[in-house]
């Protein structure tokens, strides 16, 4: 990035809108899963409370604290995984995380139709230091939603 204009590479309108209003605030009484994530380097936090039915995410509550990118990314993730089967979510997260971690993983993310909703986050790949903000929630879900507990 060379100037403020290029900040729009990171701070697209959808990211700023979602960061100021991430949604998914409705509390869930008896969640099947409570999944927490923390970035120890910066203090960003996230907590997902998830209700499952027939191996699908039927309801989700999001509590998120941190920067605009982390908040927006968490919100987009919730929008993508709601009503989705756990097996599909695993693949979606895998494609999203691989895109940011691998130089040559671009094609998969564009083929995955569910990830169109996350396209405002794709350009963050060019800002190495902020990739961790985009990935915290996705890694958190990927590493914990599919565990036996």
């Amino acid at each position, binding site marked *: 990035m*060379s100037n403020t204009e290029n900040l729009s590479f990171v701070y697209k309108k959808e990211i700023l809108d979602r960061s*100021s209003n991430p949604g998914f605030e409705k509390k869930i009484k008896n969640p099947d899963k409570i999944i927490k994530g923390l970035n120890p380097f910066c203090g960003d936090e996230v907590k997902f409370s998830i209700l499952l039915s027939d191996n699908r995410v039927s309801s989700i509550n999001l509590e998120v604290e941190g*920067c605009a990118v982390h908040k927006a990314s968490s919100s987009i993730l919730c929008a993508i995984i709601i009503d989705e089967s756990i097996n599909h979510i695993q693949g979606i997260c895998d494609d999203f995380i691989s895109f940011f971690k691998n130089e040559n993983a671009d094609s998969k993310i564009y083929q995955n139709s569910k990830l169109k909703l996350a396209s405002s986050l794709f350009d963050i790949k060019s800002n190495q230091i902020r990739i961790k903000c985009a990935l915290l929630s996705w890694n958190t879900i990927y590493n914990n939603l599919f565990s036996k507990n």
Partner: protein
Amino acid sequence: MIQSQDIAKDFPILQRKINDNKLIYFDNAATTQKPTHVIESISNFYSNTNSNIHRGVHTLSMESTYEYDQAKDKVAEFINSPNSESIIFTRGTTESINLVAETWGKANLDESSEIVITELEHHSNIVPWQELIKETNSKLKYIPINSDGTLNYENLNQIINSNTKIVSLTHVSNGIGTINNIKKIIKEAQSVGAITLIDAAQSAPHMPIDVQDLGCDFLAFSGHKMLGPTGIGVLYGKKDILEEMPAYQKGGDMILEVTYEKSSWNEVPFKFEAGTPNIAGAIGLKSAIDYLNLISMDSIREHEKELTEHILKEMRNIDGIDILGPESVEDRAGLVSFNIPNVHPHDLGTYLDTKGIAIRTGHHCAMPLIKKLGSHSSARASFYVYNTKNEINEFVTQINNSIKYFDNV
């Protein structure tokens, strides 16, 4: 008065442009930039003198040994240590604190012992003690803070009591800049026979330090936060205490005699410097101290007070700003930690980077402190000899611009 513009010319990196703007480096509490003087001393060592120390009889080894020992003398003089044997070179403040916890701590603490630290500490002065209490069944107690981030000294004589064996605290908070009244706490510790360790990582680079005047038993700081290279730090310890302590790491250079059956240890400080030390780092640190002495530590403290007074005055005009830490510059080092409404510190940090301004954002390795003050993170601007009021003016302008930017997008 320091001529910061002239000083800045000695630092090659400060001539760099970041994102088309002249670099404004306000991340000095994390690490400082290096003057040509220091860079060349390291380069010169590797180009002309490089050799291992203390063992060889050839010219290069004698020269390297001389320079390394000179560095130790320089550090001793810098903090007014009564002798050079009290100076141990480590990798940095973190290793210095760990050295004391691992050696003195394990040898002297049991289930009746209490360790006292404060709520202001960097993780490096919390975690080693948390681990030590698990191994020794001792207790860890905290001197609390007031809402302005100063220490609450009210119940000091209850927190520090006859069970207290060591009081380990920071001189200056890296998170919010509070300058602690360490003399008062050292005195309290001495009254119950406890030893004291001062984390001077954020003070030794910025103000005069006199270990004899303070009366502390240990003092730790890092070279890279005072214009020196990374990987070199200092542990000062009173010689009689160091002599009684068990060795830290074991191996070459720290031994007196080794047989196949057993070994005995060299005298202090060599007992605590196993293996080939960071010779170039020590020489770089000596050059950094020479450079700081040319400016004078008193002048550096005055300069940073002026900058801090200026930035606090300017920043208090920003609507809704939350400035963490003490109000008075007498109680605050050259460091301002803050939050502004609706712009998360990381987003502010990214915005300022596009303007060439480097600050730190996050919890500054003081997670419990930042949480205690009601935040998850903060933005932190910290100053040094090369920073100017004009840079602060630009910084404040860009903070205001960032508020507009994130409001309007």
